[in-house]
């Protein structure tokens, strides 16, 4: 299915550079169905990096994984799917994380180590 989509978009000249997989489908992320994030949107916009920065120490050193703030949570909720149902990485061009970070020229290092799509073994 994914090959078909890619072949079709290639044929129609829609395959744009930088977007490696099929287009993400709008409304396909979990977050699209929710009223708000773990905090009101204005708070998240201003403080999301603070929340996950402190959480990372608590998780790695103290083993706390039940907090409402987590990078895995961001990815789980904000990753969109393409038309074949496959997750599109959150840091890919135009996707949730990239959208703002690209605009403000903040280079995201999180995903050198962290998974960009929800993925268990």
């Amino acid at each position, binding site marked *: 299915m994914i090959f078909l989509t890619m072949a079709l978009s290639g044929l129609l000249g829609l395959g744009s550079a930088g977007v490696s997989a099929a287009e993400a489908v709008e409304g396909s992320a979990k977050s699209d169905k929710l009223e708000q994030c773990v905090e009101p949107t204005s708070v998240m916009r201003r403080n999301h990096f603070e929340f996950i920065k402190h959480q990372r120490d608590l*998780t*790695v050193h*103290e083993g*706390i*994984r*039940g907090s409402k703030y987590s990078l895995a949570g961001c990815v789980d909720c904000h990753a969109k799917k393409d038309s074949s149902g496959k997750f599109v990485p959150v840091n890919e061009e135009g996707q949730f994380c990239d959208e703002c970070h690209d605009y403000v020229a903040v280079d995201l290092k999180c995903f*050198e*180590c*962290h998974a960009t799509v929800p993925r*268990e073994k």
Partner: protein
Amino acid sequence: MSMSKIEQQGRREFLKKAAIGSAVTIAPGVMLHSLSAEAAPRTEPVTGKVRWGMLVDANKCADGCNDCVAACDKENGLDLVDMPEGADESQWERQRPRWIRQITLKDNLTGRLTHLPMMCQHCEEPPCADVCPTGASFRRADGIVMVDRHICIGCRYCMMACPYKARSFIHAEVAEKLTHTPRGKGCVESCNFCVHRLDNGQTTTACQDACKHQAIVFGDLNDPQSAVSQALKKYPSVAIRDDLKLNPGVRYSNI
């Protein structure tokens, strides 16, 4: 440590066995334990009330079996990385990230071979943490020794300091990784007793679950009723390189 034990150790030659094939699939039904209904992610910091540890019975560890290694690779996404194109295969086998290895010991006098899995021994006095210039190598309150990858600078001092050769360095970018095991280029890593499982309320490690010979018992060393404490009480066991006085959390019997 008695003199005879040191001599005995000197006679033994550690033969590193190239891990055989990474694509060994774990037979269905070996995952004996799964997330129980009451298991929940931790909300309280870990404490020293628990000390995680392990007892390996080398008599039960079978020659040629690689199930624990394959299970660890799968659990932590180490199997998602392929050999870089054009790389030398023997070099790749030597340098690829490995959190657990199969080791064969040979007693040169008698010729007796012993097989055992070797991973981070979760030392109470970890030399890796001693030498780490940034504090990235550390021992958690519950005895798990791990690397905080956020502050690891990749100097690899810890790899040199570890007497058990337990640590690996990630040389290349990691395209595929699992949500619960973040890993990336430039950091050192090693066995963390499947810390994500423990923090989410599970009580077993992947290697233990995969061992169909039941060679691995894992649990809380501080709880006298735990299976591992009971087994340690019942059977004679040793700490490898006991002379270094690191008080490792992993013990071996029948070696």
